[in-house]
């Protein structure tokens, strides 16, 4: 039997900052972020990843000592060099004879990690894999990107037994493009050269050919799918792209997390997919497509199995409801933008 998703878990930090705070301080705000989650002073991509992974293990009823591979992905790993996955593996109590991988530098890479982990299990190298996507990217407070950047994590257990969500097919696209979103080596802030329609055209072409690609491989059409998850894309562009693909807004609204969480970078796609799977019914089909500037995309076609509801326990909505609002001054202090590392 082919590898699929055995369980998933999410984590959203409890701190939030509202759009009104950005309006108050800067006089402007992101068009689509109503509020966003904020990693606390003692949180980072590793600690949030550990929380999401613990939830995934609990939901899947899998012991951490049975995990054979850990794929960690983030655009904001605490260490640019020194393996980050080893901290997560140790904190979870994983065995020492496991394969560990860090995947960085693209907001697309949640799906890259998931597909790599599926390959690991399908190749027979191991039985159970753990994918951890966690991100809290930072940007210049004067820049246009900063307001939208949130913080969240999602984790998935991949295996061949007790598969709750089947992975049917995948399709990937790569296309070289410049300036949309990048961070040079040694820099802490992600940045953008706003080129409006140029970037919108690249994004639209990459995503539409990716989603169409996976549907064509399965001889399916948009009508055959119940949900389309577009990770790493703002709601306005997501709505436009999905219409072009023949998906009405109702099919993408469930997978839209960024208005309340912000842009969760490499965690976006798996966070949104987890949310969709929490309320999916048996037999439903979902496409999860993630996009990363530069540019690349992966689209994965999934089918909900008999026990799909058991896939997620500590739920997205629970995390969304437990929150505490902070002001902008607290925000730039705890995010180490005002001072400190």
């Amino acid at each position, binding site marked *: 039997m082919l590898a699929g998703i055995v369980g998933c878990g999410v984590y959203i930090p409890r701190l939030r900052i509202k759009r009104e705070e950005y309006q108050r301080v800067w006089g402007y705000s992101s068009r689509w972020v109503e509020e966003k989650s904020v990693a606390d002073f003692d949180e980072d991509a590793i600690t949030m990843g550990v929380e999401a992974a613990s939830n995934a293990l609990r939901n899947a009823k899998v012991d951490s000592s049975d995990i054979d591979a850990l794929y960690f992905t983030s655009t904001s790993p605490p260490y640019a060099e020194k393996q980050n996955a080893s901290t997560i593996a140790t904190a979870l109590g994983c065995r020492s004879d496991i394969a560990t991988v860090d995947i960085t530098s693209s907001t697309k890479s949640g799906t890259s990690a998931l597909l790599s982990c599926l390959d690991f299990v399908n190749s027979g190298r191991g039985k159970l894999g753990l994918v951890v996507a966690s991100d809290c990217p930072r940007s210049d407070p004067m820049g246009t990107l900063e307001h939208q950047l949130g913080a969240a994590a999602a984790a998935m257990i991949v295996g061949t037994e007790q598969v709750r969500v089947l992975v049917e097919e995948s399709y990937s696209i790569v296309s070289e493009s410049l300036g949309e979103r990048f961070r040079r080596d040694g820099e802490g802030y992600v940045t953008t050269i706003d080129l409006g329609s140029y970037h919108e055209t690249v994004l639209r072409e990459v995503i539409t050919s990716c989603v169409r690609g996976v549907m064509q491989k399965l001889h399916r059409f948009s009508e055959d799918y119940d949900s389309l998850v577009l990770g790493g894309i703002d709601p306005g562009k997501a709505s436009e792209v999905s219409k072009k693909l023949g998906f009405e807004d109702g099919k993408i609204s469930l997978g839209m997390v960024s208005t309340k969480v912000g842009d969760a970078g490499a965690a976006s796609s798996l966070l949104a997919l987890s949310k969709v799977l929490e309320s999916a019914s048996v037999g439903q089909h979902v496409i999860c497509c993630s996009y990363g500037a530069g540019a690349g995309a992966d689209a994965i076609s999934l089918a909900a199995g008999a026990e799909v509801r058991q896939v997620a326990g500590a739920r997205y909505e629970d995390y969304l409801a437990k929150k505490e609002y902070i002001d902008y001054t607290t925000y730039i202090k*705890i995010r180490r933008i005002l001072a400190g590392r």
Partner: protein
Amino acid sequence: MAYVSIPTYSRSIPQRYALIAAKCKSCGAISLPLGANCLKCGKILEYESQKLSGRGKIYCFTTISRGGSPPEFLAQQNLVGSYPVAVVELDEGPRIVAQMTDCRAEDLKIGLEVESTFRRIYDDDGMIRYGVKFRPVRTSREDS
């Protein structure tokens, strides 16, 4: 606490990251942190490792106010202000000192049920020292 060298810190990483404790082969009591002797029967500790649940209750607590923090927590205090610290009595028996997080000092009381969470503790030697903090429980016992 003062400076803890990286080799010393590393030796206790399983305890610090994942609450891996020692179960005494003589009396069965759980020791954390690990010392030379069992915390209960006092015999030289021969043990098997046991991962603790991370669940427990606040035994007592305090607030570390400005000027009161050890040097490794100065950056935290400068940026965040006062922070709560508790002695937590774990379900398996041991009492350990740890910071409380995801809560306000006024939310704390003796006997409050808490659960462990993996966090950044402080920075030293350019490295992040990770470890366990506690927060009021957010998942029910049945789920865990």
